[in-house]
Structures are given as structure tokens and as C-alpha cells.
């Protein structure tokens, strides 16, 4: 594994996160990432993490511990937004990020971590499962209005 440094996200990572998102989705969405990053920073700046290689931010993962969602009362560590630059993939960056989030969740009193993956995102699904997640006994239902 290359020299990957994992550290908590800061306000000075917003532009790097925009850059990674832009590589993945082709869209520049600074407002959306500013809103998201300040949300996680103000709730718990030690949960969400970025990965650096040679001083360059190549990946990020945003998430936090919450309780009481979906009727699931127990404190739950939610893995919510993440991405790794295409040229930095398959080097364990994603794994290092998720491990850092899970460690923080545990120290915050969570005994379970959860995430939601859209069925068409096969790659993300595979990555998440490789990191020890299994389908939860919950079915997501929706109705178009």
C-alpha cells in the first residue's frame, strides 16, 4: 500500500472533495459540498475523514453517529458520502477511510454501522461488502408522488 495518511476532514478540504466528486460525476458542485462539509464538521469533525497521498487529498468519507432513525433507536454509525480519485483506487485508500470512520463510531458508542447503496451502484456495493457489511433486515420502500 502506498503511503496513505488518514486524517479528519477540515474546511480546507472542500475544494479537494469537489475535485474528487467532479472526477467521479463530472459535475462541479461547490455549494452542495460546502453545505455537507460544514454539516459534518459542526456535528463531529473527528468522524469524517480524508485520505492523502504525498500531501494530496485523494479520497474522502463523510459520516457520523446518529440515533433514532428508521425506528432504529440504537446509536448507529452512518457512512454517507465517499469517493476516491480514479487514479488512486485499488490501493486500499477506501478501506483505510472506512476503517477510520468505524473506529470513531465505536469510540462514540455505536455498536453498528449502516449505509445505503442504490441497487445500480454495483461497485460501491462490492466495496461496502468487502469491508464487512452485509444486507440489513430492513427493506427500503418508496412511492412516487
Amino acid at each position: 500500500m502506498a503511503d496513505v495518511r488518514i486524517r479528519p476532514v477540515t474546511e480546507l478540504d472542500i475544494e479537494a472533495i469537489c475535485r474528487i466528486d467532479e472526477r467521479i460525476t463530472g459535475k462541479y458542485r461547490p455549494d452542495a459540498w460546502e453545505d455537507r462539509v460544514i454539516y459534518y464538521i459542526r456535528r463531529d469533525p473527528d468522524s469524517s475523514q480524508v485520505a492523502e497521498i504525498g500531501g494530496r487529498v485523494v479520497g474522502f468519507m463523510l459520516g457520523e453517529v446518529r440515533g433514532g432513525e428508521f425506528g432504529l433507536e440504537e446509536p448507529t454509525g452512518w457512512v454517507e458520502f465517499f469517493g476516491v480519485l480514479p487514479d488512486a483506487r485499488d490501493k486500499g485508500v477506501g478501506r483505510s477511510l472506512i476503517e477510520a470512520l468505524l473506529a470513531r463510531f465505536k469510540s462514540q458508542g455505536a455498536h453498528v454501522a449502516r449505509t445505503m447503496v442504490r441497487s445500480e451502484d454495483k461497485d460501491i456495493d462490492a466495496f461496502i461488502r468487502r469491508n464487512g457489511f452485509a444486507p440489513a433486515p430492513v427493506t427500503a420502500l418508496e412511492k412516487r408522488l
Partner: protein
Amino acid sequence: MLAGTLKAMTDEIRMLPKAYHDAVEHWQRHNFPEYPQLTERWQQYFPKDAEFCLCARLEKDMPTEIQVGDRKGQPKALAPKELDKEAAEQLLMIVRAQASTEFGSIQQHHGTFERANDPQDQTWVLRVMAEELRHGYQMIHLLTSADWSKWTDTKPQDMVEEILSMQTGSHVLAAFNLEYDSFGDSIAFAAFIDRVGKYQLTMQKVNTYAPMAASMPPMLREEAFHLAAGVIPMRRWMEAAARDRNATMDVPTIQKMCAKWYGRGLEMFGDERGGATNVKLGLKDLTNREAQDLYIAECGKMLDDINTRFVRARLAHLSRDDADKAYARIKDGKTVEGIRRDDLLRLPDRRFFRRRGEPAFQMIGHDGEQFTDVEEYIAHVLAHLPEAYRASIDVKHWIEMQRKVSRGEIELKKAINSMPRLARVGGACPCSKSVRWVMDVPEGTSGGGERLNP
């Protein structure tokens, strides 16, 4: 429990004894009258966040052995009496200065709070102010929750009284004696001055006095938000400036705010040549210059990010890679599609407009140019400062000192230590019914009487 809400589980919560708690709340009523708005705005802007609590928070599970300095490896002090004399005295000064910054910044934000033109920015600043109040509370907790009588003759109630009596103009550090010219200063202050706070708190995480070290992580988590509350509005100003030539915040205005605050931020690290004693005593883990160098690099990174937002908005037709290349060329001094270096933000030279530390009064220009004629230098500095600030007592005082130093009419050391006299009402409580903030402390109280969170 509210849906999606969870209280942080890592800190231990402490309340001050009633007399001190009341004194802080009393101070708040006079200096921070906006505070009651927090509850309602919290519901609107931070609906699922854990509620704000005016209390001291101590991180659990911190290292128990001294991490730096001469006594590295020995057990940390749990009570003041276990400290060395020098460390104890130095620490008392640090706590007093830290407390002064916390309460001082509220007074500064208060000055222009009502003039904010964006409700979200204003609410962020309101939260910052409340958290600064909590930080001040935390410092008072350190002074009053333990017995310091071995190291100082000052009673805890008098230490607290002294802290609460400081006004803009009598604070320990210059950055907290500058009045704001507009609400924009709240933003620039959060981006530049709270950032120094982050460095100080981070360095003190190793502090040899265990309660001081344990006070830092909860404060740092709040500080992370303060920095975002400064940087994000600045990013948005720059985006607006790129799109709209009549944006209310144009680049020269933002640049001048940077010039106003940056030098004061650099000076908060203390003299560039100092800080080794604090490391030796196990109070901090970096010397002044080491910390300042990191800060300078970080401010440069901040402006690069903000400038990128401008370039992306102005040159929206360029791909990310091409925009990054364009910015690199502009930074290098080239003009790209009409954008010049001066159209973007840049960090002033670290020696520009300095009044303390190694480069104090050295007549170095905004971009590093050396001046020999004092009047030319003053004109140069004034041209780089915000107009409203130029008319302040602070700038007037600097001009006097700069002239005297350059003409050899005052010793450099005296000029460095000279503070502008701001005409200020005395700092005691303005209520007619009392002359002190701290009241009803039983005689002979020397701390230790704290109560746990009810």
C-alpha cells in the same frame, strides 16, 4: 431522543459553582445580548444538532504521562500543586490570555452582529459567539475548580473578576483589541484569528496539567466549525465577485480585510524567536516559529482554495484541469483570460504591518518590498488597509509608533509593548446594583467546589 440526534459521548460535563456561573451569565447579559436568539435559530439552522450547553467539557481517556519537555514520561499533574513553579506560573498566564481571547472575541462580534446581510452567516456567527462563551467558561473552570493558592496570591474570584472586566482595548492580545468595521470582519476574523486559536489549542493538547489538556479536544471540535464559518462565506463572496462585477464584497475589499487581520494573527503566536520554554515545561509541543510556519502555509492554502472558487466561476467553460492550470499561471504572475494576479487574493508578506515579534516595525511592504522612507511606508500600508479601519485609534497609534521607531525617538521594545488607549468605560459590571461581576463567593474560597452536571 429526537430523531437523528445523539449527544456526544466522549466528554465529561462540569458546571461552575453558582457564583461563577452567575457571573458569566451576568457578563453575557451585558456583552452578548444576542445570546437568547440562539435557541430559536438553533431549531431553524441546526435542528438535529445536540443542544448548546454553557458548561465545561473534559475529554476522557487522555494520556496520563507528560508528552514533551524535560519531564517527558513522568505523570501529568492532576492538581496545580503537582506542577513546577515555572510551569504553574506560565500556565496561569496562558489560561488568562486564552480566557481573554474567548470573551474578547464576543465583544468584537457583538459590535457588528446586527449589520449582517445574510441570515445564515449571521446565525453561524451567533453559534460561534455562544461557543466562545463556553470556551471562556472552560477557562474559568480551570481557574476555579482547583486550588492555585500555592502559586498565586490572587484569589480565584479576583482572577475571574479580572477576566470579565476586560474590554476591547484592554485584552491581553492585540487581535482582540481591534474593533470590527463591518460584519465582514466577523468572517475574516473566523478565518484568520480562530485559525490561530486552533493552533494554540492543538499545541496545548499535550499540556502537562491534565485538566488543561482534557479541555482542548472539545474546544477544538467547536473551533473546526468556527473555521468553516469563516472560510465558506469567504468562498461564496469570491464566487459572487467572479460572477457579478457589482458584488457587494469585491476582491479588493476582501484583500484589505486579510491585510487587517493576518499580521495580528501572526503576532498571536508570540515572538518568532520564543516558545522553547513552553515546550521545555511540557505546556505546548511546538515553538512559536514552528507553529507560525504551519499557520502561514495553511493560510496560503486557504486563499488558494478561495481563489480556485473564483477562477472556476469566472472561467466556467474550462475543465477542472484547465482551470487548475490557469490558476497556477495567474499565481505565477501571468494574465489569463483577463484575470491578473491582483484580481485574486494573496497572502501579505509575513513581515508586513507588524508591530510585535521579530519583524516589528521593519517597514516591509505587503508583497515583501523594503521601504526606507517612513512616510512612504505609512502611505503604502494605509493603501492596503480597509478604509474604515484606517480611521481607527489603532492605526493612528501604529503610525505614531512607526514614525518614532524609524526616527529613533523610541526604543523598539517600548514601541512593541505600547498599546493604543481606547476610550472605554471601566470594565466592571455596568449595573447600578453592583460593582463586580463575581458576587457572593464565600470568604476564603479557593476553588474545588464545582458541581457535576445536574
